[in-house]
């Protein structure tokens, strides 16, 4: 009870990381989905290299968006079921910081593996190598935004009859700016324009979401355990 807030934050994040490592198959599920979904596009569109190179940024971004949705259902769901959410809320951490810790854990267990998997997928789709760092930089910001918005949506739908079905409906409209800016940066880089403004806008979006989403998610968590 008397532990300091940073120590508590680290404990919550560490607990989620340990859970993710011990249920490795669940954690890898999102990444496997990402690669599989990306591999479906060449099969559906035909293997023409020019077409794939043109579409690679969009494919990688959309697949990352959808893959990041998969683990959200369980982000707070298992904690609510086994009662550990009540324990977390009593731990002395403000609800917003509990939510933030879970969002950080979601990014570390989903966003980061997606980043690692995005590089080979982008190369397989024929994205030019000089553009790859911009893709990864954009995705690093974008997956963080997704973890924040997704964590907020996951806390809101806690206890709903069909939370899993609702989640995409709530997350995807709010996540569209990230997709637009991220894909626009890659488009600009491929056509030789400056990609920096789009990534800066993406960073600004992240900076706005960073304080607001945990606050909203904290309100959602409080409502869920009431």
């Amino acid at each position, binding site marked *: 009870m008397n532990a300091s807030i940073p120590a508590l934050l680290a404990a919550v994040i560490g607990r989620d990381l340990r859970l993710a490592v011990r249920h490795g198959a669940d954690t890898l599920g999102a990444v496997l989905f990402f690669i599989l979904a990306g591999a479906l596009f060449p099969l559906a569109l035909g293997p023409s290299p020019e077409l794939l190179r043109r579409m690679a940024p969009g494919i990688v971004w959309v697949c990352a968006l959808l893959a990041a949705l998969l683990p959200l259902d369980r982000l707070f769901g298992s904690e609510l079921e086994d009662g550990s959410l009540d324990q977390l809320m009593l731990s002395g951490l403000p609800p917003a910081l509990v939510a933030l810790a879970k969002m950080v854990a979601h990014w570390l267990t989903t966003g980061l593996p997606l980043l690692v998997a995005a590089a080979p997928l982008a190369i397989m789709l024929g994205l030019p190598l000089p553009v790859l760092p911009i893709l990864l930089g954009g995705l690093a910001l974008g997956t963080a935004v997704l973890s924040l918005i997704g964590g*907020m949506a996951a806390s809101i739908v806690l206890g*709903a*009859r069909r939370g899993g079905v*609702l989640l995409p409906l*709530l997350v995807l409209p*709010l996540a569209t700016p990230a997709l637009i800016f991220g894909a626009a940066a890659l488009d600009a880089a491929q056509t030789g324009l400056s990609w920096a403004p789009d990534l800066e806008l993406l960073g600004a979006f992240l900076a706005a979401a960073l304080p607001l989403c945990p606050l909203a998610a904290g309100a959602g968590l409080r*409502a869920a355990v009431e």
Partner: protein
Amino acid sequence: MGRNETVLNATPSLAARTGNFFHRYANPGRFLRLGARLQPWLTWPAIVLSIAGIVWGLFLSPADWQQGDSVRIMYVHVPAAWLASSGYMGLAVCSLLSLVWRHPLADLAAVEIGPVGASVTAICLATGSLWGKPMWGTWWVWDARLTSVLVLFFLYLGHIALIRAFDEPQRGYRAAAILGLAGAVDLPIIKFSVQWWNTLHQPDSITLTAAPTMSTNMLWPLLVCTVGFTFGFAAILVARLRAAVMESRVRTALAMRRGRAEAQDSEPDLSGAVA
């Protein structure tokens, strides 16, 4: 605030006064009486002004020199667009009232604004698409204004689905209120999309700060239509709210009657067991 209430608490604090103001119409009986009195004043102007504006716009106003008769779609499209974003604004205000003051009427209003707002957003998108085909040569473009209104439509749908997704209505109100506030970031994006991104949708013709860039014999029917549609939105909303309040009263009455019946059923059983 009523005079007798002021007398009752001699020095009401500001918080208590605003609380009283907001909660004055939280009393469902008071709201029903007010709503019944308000309803004809919303419904009849809505019918008269909408018909007048539509007839004026569709038959009496001139055709555009460039767009021809297609310009008449504007008389439905612009009011629908205005109501789509102001409806969401209302939803966001209700969400704030619901989260901060736990106002029961704001909860019900949020439930009822959703479907009405989604409908006008759908009308806005559909009429815009019908206008776009002859004018732009395409039903749909991924222009910033169009995309942000489409996102607004999905936000409405998400809100509608979320607020009805919980077995316990109170949880749904709270969750949907958080979503309603988060979704409000889309409103400035819609408003300024025609200025930030120079794409296909034309910038605003009517602003508060400058003279409108359209002919007055088109502006007047448009204004009449907008006012009429707004009254219509309010009339539908008040009617739905009254129905919702009455429905919850009927539910409570039925639950109480069922509870009493069960109590009566179990009583002789109990006494028999004791005897």
